[in-house]
């Protein structure tokens, strides 16, 4: 992680998605509470980012009613209309899903005409949807049904709409309509606006201005001709997958405006390089010419060459057309990439732009951004690049074929401009290519099969990307991208990096072994790149081997994280060379210019662009998959009915890929039935008809049946016979006799794993999934037998046969496994036995103080009954039945205890002196218990769950005492000379949790005494954890403000800056964020100061952004940075065998701390009169390396400085009280003694459920009073 922030006074590194500091938001824009647009009746408008289709406008109801309705829709549906009601929920995605496919399938199959969604709040009318409602929604769109003040609504966003349609023109009443297939809905008929009868029967491409409107109409974009069957087919594929092929009215109007505004003879501020002999080189049919180049002898380094790499200047044109707010920019941003298909493409920009106005065509003046760099004769770049804004005039448009033929001596070229350009390209491109190969760049596989459409409209196959000149030319471009990457990283600037992370050695080892299984040697020291270079196309199993080597590599992605591109072996790689087919390249241009010119990079669209880039990648890959099916079908057309040899190049349980040398094509073939990967990873078998054995790398006979190229379908039948899939029937009723001790092994693993064993023992406990059995020899321990319904009772002596299993924790891969028995036969009762006395932990004493010793201590006890000595609870009990106790006889140093008798965290020292209990229903659950509760007669069986040893209680313990619930009250209250700031983790609060919200509100009023500012974390959006488009949380904030007032508190306003949907981590669908409540009667806030810190930064990816806001109390201005740093998920349990230990999220938190430190130090330096406080949930302790790094330059660690040791905790993690919400401030406020603070203990001590953290509060004396 690079250091962020740098020295004092240096510019804070800005990242994608973050608004420039110089560009203050419009007044009030950040304070959504005050700026939310509203209807005249005061109700908020629907989100402008979404389209809402609503039927059956319902009477207005309160938020409570709606919330209740949403929450219980699912449970009510069947009761209302069991036969009619289709529901589209899946267990984790209530009220959301692929509604379009669902409507088509369910409604169609049932011959129903509509689907009705019933909320059980009868004040809200049901939402009725027809299959036609799926029309206008792009495939793959995540559509939601939302409840709001107006009732239930179907909601979609721009990226989910079908703007373009390909269909046949038919008569529609008195007019015409375009009739088209739809990926989701039944056949569509969209009225064609202004169509003439001459269009009847013709296939057309049309634009739909308002896709979701009931009265939508289509406008003709183009008419397909008789020879355009393939173009129609390919266009259909694209538009059905969400590609937009047409343009809106607003776009067209802007286009006209831009055309009029563009004067190539008057491009101000650009240097004139029109005299330089630039050329473009592309495929012959390319019209969107992104790059032009001019290579000259270097003026400074003898033997070297100066490369002027000119790139079409999209930004220049965007400025002419309204910039970010314009339709041209918006469409390009949304689509991100041009979709290329054989003979057809769907460009990001209108062709007038990409093929004319912006294109670097011959003999026209065009604005460009030039990357000028010098390449030595050895192919190494000399010095630094220059970035110029220049007007150029390309002198020639040429193509790869001609250049390659010239180089190969096959074509005579007399044009001196081309001869010069080709020779220089050969020299420089060739030298760069040699360098790239020498540094270990992974070379692309041989040219792939592709297709084109010929003059007769026929699909003809071709091969692309084979020529040497294309590789050499690509190096000119790759070098430019690499230099841009280095430049931006060197200047600590943001960028859209193309990242290809380093391969994982362990994964390469697997691939290496798989390659060796195919009989091909891949020596240990040979890297994947070297192996690929070594592969010879003529070698047996070449393609299968190549696939395995390539698949050992990670996938390249677009990221804000400046990681290297390992495939190219480049430290940094930022694409800039194709802005007309890849919109983010133009955004990278902007970063280059801004850094070059000393401006602050504008990253305000960052997160949006990254999201659209991911959508575009998925969309284009779907289109490409379909086209590959078509191409392979086309290639196999002439082989219908024949038997071909095929080499198996890839296998999966779903099917296999086969390469047919005779047709020179590969195709994926699905295998029906249930398949399995064989043990050596190379054989697949199917029971879908005849058994088939398919082996990776083998060549086999396959019959090519019916071929339908246009549909992309080919029937391929493997003719090799195989063996049927082995079906394991019922487990054997007998097994080798083994004692429980032999089976149990070391408790975590068993030497008999997987074996069928017959054993005897005494039933020691029964639970919901089976029973515990223990050996007559108590030292052998016991086991859990997972078998439901066994008729056994504690004390039964039983004999049975079962399979030995090592059960893994599905949620924690680093946890230990636990030896258990499964698939048991019905236990035979062979007698009754007296259970041996349990292990007495009183006598045994506490576990050793080291992790290995403690692990061993508990491991030996796994499955054994134990008696836990009388002790005190050191955690509150929770709703899962977990409780941690400290036996009275187990001693700890006095300084390890909190004021409440809980065990305090000690940095770097894990405490093993405690016992975790699990209350099961069978053993009875006691009333909720607080820290300090005393328990006796604790008996249970030792198990292992969620990465910890836990005693499953076999009987209810005796509760000797239970302290009353703790809810401390602060002594820190505000007055004329003091203001107060609290920090409250609201634990995923949302409008569906009214009761808990009331308890939170009451705590704020009663315990925190209504602080002046409340920094809150874990505020969920209006529909809570529902996965939908909803990100607004105004209802959540308003609910809390209202409940605080109802609890007797003052009136609070709030500050919220919503995150991008699903981009900040936390509970899926919840869109948790940090926010502020503040008392308007005591403080004011500066709306322009509000911003999310960390937007677009790698450290904040999939994590909550910190929220920054400034407030004013009297004359004092103070800033709060409200954090909720990355979670600790993925941490290895203390007893894990995994080394080295992993602290989940630590790297991210370190990066987040650096960003926060940068901000605090910046303010401290520039505005010493502004006190800055970092509050919130840091997910790390006050003495962790992360917080030490944060405070190392002098920021004050208030938690450490102001809180006594016995009070220093706000969280209880499995019986350890610790700080996860440390507070840090700028130095002055602490040094001047103006700040006091407290943790208000409640949740870390008592079984309260309003939050899982204690809250904190500070009181700050004003400067004047001090």
């Amino acid at each position: 992680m690079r250091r962020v922030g740098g020295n004092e006074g240096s510019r804070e590194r800005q990242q994608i998605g973050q608004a420039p500091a110089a560009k203050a938001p419009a007044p009030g824009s950040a304070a959504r509470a005050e700026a939310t647009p509203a209807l005249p009746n005061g109700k908020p408008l629907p989100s402008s980012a979404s389209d809402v289709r609503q039927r059956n406008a319902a009477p207005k109801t309160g938020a409570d009613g709606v919330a209740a309705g949403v929450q219980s829709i699912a449970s009510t549906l069947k009761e209302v209309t069991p036969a009619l009601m289709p529901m589209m929920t899946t267990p984790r995605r209530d009220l959301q899903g692929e509604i379009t496919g669902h409507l088509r399938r369910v409604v169609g199959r049932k011959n129903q005409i509509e689907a009705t969604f019933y909320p059980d709040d009868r004040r809200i009318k049901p939402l009725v949807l027809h299959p036609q409602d799926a029309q206008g929604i792009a495939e793959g769109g995540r559509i939601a049904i939302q409840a709001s003040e107006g009732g239930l609504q179907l909601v979609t966003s721009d990226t989910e709409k079908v703007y373009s349609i390909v269909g046949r023109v038919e008569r529609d009443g008195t007019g015409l309509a375009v009739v088209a297939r739809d990926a989701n809905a039944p056949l569509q008929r969209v009225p064609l606006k202004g169509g003439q009868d001459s269009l009847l029967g013709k296939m057309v491409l049309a634009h739909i201005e308002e896709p979701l409107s009931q009265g939508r109409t289509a406008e003709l974009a183009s008419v397909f001709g008789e020879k355009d069957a393939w173009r129609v087919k390919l266009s259909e594929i694209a538009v059905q997958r969400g590609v937009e092929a047409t343009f809106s009215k607003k776009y067209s109007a802007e286009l006209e405006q831009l055309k009029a505004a563009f004067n190539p003879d008057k491009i101000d501020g650009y240097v004139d390089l029109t005299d330089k002999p630039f050329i473009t080189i592309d495929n012959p049919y390319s019209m969107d010419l992104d790059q032009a180049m001019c290579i000259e002898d270097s003026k400074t380094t003898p033997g070297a060459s100066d490369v002027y790499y000119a790139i079409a200047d999209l930004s220049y044109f965007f400025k002419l057309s309204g910039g970010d707010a314009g339709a041209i920019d918006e469409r390009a941003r949304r689509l991100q990439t041009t979709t290329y298909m054989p003979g057809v493409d769907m460009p990001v920009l209108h062709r007038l732009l990409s093929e004319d106005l912006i294109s670097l065509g011959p003999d026209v003046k065009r604005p460009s951004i030039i990357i000028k760099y010098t390449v030595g004769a050895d192919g190494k770049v000399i010095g630094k690049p220059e970035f110029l804004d220049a007007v150029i005039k390309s002198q020639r448009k040429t193509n790869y074929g001609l250049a390659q033929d010239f180089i190969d001596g096959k074509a005579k070229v007399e044009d001196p401009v081309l001869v010069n350009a080709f020779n220089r390209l050969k020299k420089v491109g060739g030298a760069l290519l040699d360098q790239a190969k020498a540094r270990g760049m992974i070379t692309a596989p041989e040219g792939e099969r592709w297709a084109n459409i010929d003059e007769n409209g026929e699909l003809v196959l071709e091969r692309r990307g084979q020529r040497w000149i294309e590789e050499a030319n690509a190096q000119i471009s790759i070098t430019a991208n690499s230099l841009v990457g280095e430049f931006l990283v060197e200047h600590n600037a943001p960028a859209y990096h193309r990242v290809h992370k380093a391969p994982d050695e362990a994964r390469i080892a697997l691939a290496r072994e798989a390659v060796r299984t195919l009989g091909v040697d891949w020596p240990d020291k040979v890297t994947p790149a070297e192996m690929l270079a070594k592969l010879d196309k003529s070698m047996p199993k070449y393609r299968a081997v190549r696939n395995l080597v390539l698949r050992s590599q990670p996938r390249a992605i677009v990221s804000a994280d400046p990681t290297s591109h390992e495939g190219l072996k480049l430290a940094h790689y930022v694409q800039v060379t194709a802005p007309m087919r890849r919109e983010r390249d133009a955004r990278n241009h902007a970063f280059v210019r801004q850094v070059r010119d000393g401006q602050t990079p504008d990253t305000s669209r960052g997160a949006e662009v990254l999201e659209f880039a991911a959508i575009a990648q998925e969309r284009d890959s779907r289109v490409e998959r379909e086209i590959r099916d078509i191409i392979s079908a086309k290639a196999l057309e002439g082989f219908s009915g024949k038997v071909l040899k095929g080499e198996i190049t890839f296998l999966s349980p779903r099917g296999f890929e086969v390469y047919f040398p005779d047709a020179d094509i590969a195709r994926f073939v699905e295998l029906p039935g249930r398949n399995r990967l064989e043990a050596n990873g190379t054989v697949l078998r199917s029971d879908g008809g005849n058994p088939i054995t398919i082996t990776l790398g083998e060549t086999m006979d396959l019959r090519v049946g019916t071929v339908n190229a246009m549909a992309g379908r080919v029937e391929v039948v493997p003719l090799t016979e195989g063996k049927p899939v082995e079906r394991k029937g019922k487990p054997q009723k007998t097994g080798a006799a083994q004692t429980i001790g032999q089976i149990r092994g070391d408790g975590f693993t068993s030497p008999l794993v997987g074996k069928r064993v017959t054993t005897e023992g005494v039933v020691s406990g029964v639970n919901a999934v089976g029973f515990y059995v223990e050996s007559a020899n108590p030292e052998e321990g016991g086991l859990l037998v997972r078998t439901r319904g066994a008729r056994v009772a504690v004390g039964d002596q039983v004999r049975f046969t079962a399979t030995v299993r090592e059960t893994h924790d599905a949620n924690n891969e680093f946890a230990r496994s636990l030896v258990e028995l499964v698939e048991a036969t019905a236990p035979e009762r062979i007698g009754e036995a007296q259970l041996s006395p349990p292990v007495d932990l009183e006598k045994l004493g506490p576990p050793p103080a080291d992790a290995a010793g403690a692990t061993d201590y508990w491991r030996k006890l796994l499955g054994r009954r134990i008696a836990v000595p009388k002790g005190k609870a050191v955690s509150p009990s929770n709703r899962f039945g977990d409780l941690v106790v400290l036996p009275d006889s187990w001693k700890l140093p006095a300084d390890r205890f909190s004021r409440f008798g809980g065990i305090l965290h000690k940095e770097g020292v894990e405490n093993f002196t405690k016992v975790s209990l699990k209350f099961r229903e069978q053993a009875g659950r006691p009333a909720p218990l607080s820290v300090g509760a005393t328990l006796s007669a604790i008996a249970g069986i030792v198990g292992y769950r969620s990465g910890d040893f836990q005693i499953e209680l076999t009987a209810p313990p005796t509760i000797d005492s239970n302290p009353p619930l703790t809810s401390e009250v602060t002594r820190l209250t505000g007055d004329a000379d003091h203001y107060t700031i609290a920090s409250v983790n609201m634990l995923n609060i949302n409008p569906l949790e009214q009761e808990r919200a009331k308890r939170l509100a009451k705590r704020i009023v009663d315990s925190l005494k209504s602080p002046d500012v409340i920094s809150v974390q874990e505020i969920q959006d209006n529909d809570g954890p529902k996965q939908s488009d909803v990100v607004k949380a105004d209802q959540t904030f308003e609910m809390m403000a209202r409940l605080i007032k109802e609890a007797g508190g003052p009136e609070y306003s709030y500050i919220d800056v919503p995150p991008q949907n699903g981009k900040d981590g936390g509970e899926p669908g919840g869109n948790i964020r940090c926010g502020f409540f503040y008392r308007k009667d005591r403080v004011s806030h500066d709306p322009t100061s509000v911003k999310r810190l960390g937007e677009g930064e790698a450290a904040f990816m999939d994590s909550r952004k910190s929220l920054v806001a400034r407030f004013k109390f009297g004359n004092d201005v103070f800033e709060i940075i409200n954090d909720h740093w990355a979670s600790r998920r993925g941490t290895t349990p203390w007893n894990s065998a995994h080394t080295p230990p992993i602290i989940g999220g630590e790297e991210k938190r370190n990066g987040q701390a650096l960003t926060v430190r940068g901000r605090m130090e910046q303010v401290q330096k520039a505005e010493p009169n502004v006190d800055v406080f970092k509050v919130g949930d840091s997910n790390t302790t006050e003495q962790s390396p992360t917080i030490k790094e944060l405070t190392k330059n002098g920021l004050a660690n208030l938690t450490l400085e102001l809180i006594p040791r016995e009070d220093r905790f706000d969280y209880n993690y499995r019986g350890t009280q610790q700080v996860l919400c440390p507070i840090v401030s700028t130095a002055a406020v602490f040094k001047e003694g103006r700040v006091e603070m407290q943790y208000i203990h409640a949740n870390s001590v008592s079984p309260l459920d309003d939050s899982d953290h204690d809250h904190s509060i500070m009181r700050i004396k004003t400067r004047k009073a001090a």
Partner: protein
Amino acid sequence: MAIVVDPEGLTALRAARAGAIVPDDVHDLLRDAERAKRSGDFEEAERLLQEALLTDPSRAAVWSTVGALEDQLGEVSVAREAYRAALSLEDDDKTALALARLHSSIGEWDDAIAVATHLSLNGRDETTRAMATRLAHEAKARKATS
């Protein structure tokens, strides 16, 4: 009683239930089964999933849910069969990882290595691929010592 997943058993069940009215929305059944499982009512969860299998055996999600439930209940043969059926219908990282873990849990090292290696090299999600890589290596180590 575990869920019937073998083809012959399913055919017989279907025949036995010919004419009976069965719910025909798998979404509902899956959702209800998950709820039953979470609340510890495993029998109800199994009943609902059996209905789902009879209703739409071509859906990978039904099979993977059956696999997860039976895995938890220790019905490893049924779980293994269900996971395999799911993967034959749809490439899914989570199901593949669950199958690899199941193989590993009962000492089917070769199968665990095969499935985990495949997932390591072909999985979509980088985190899952990394987990599969570790699992494959662990299974290799266990195999070597068993």
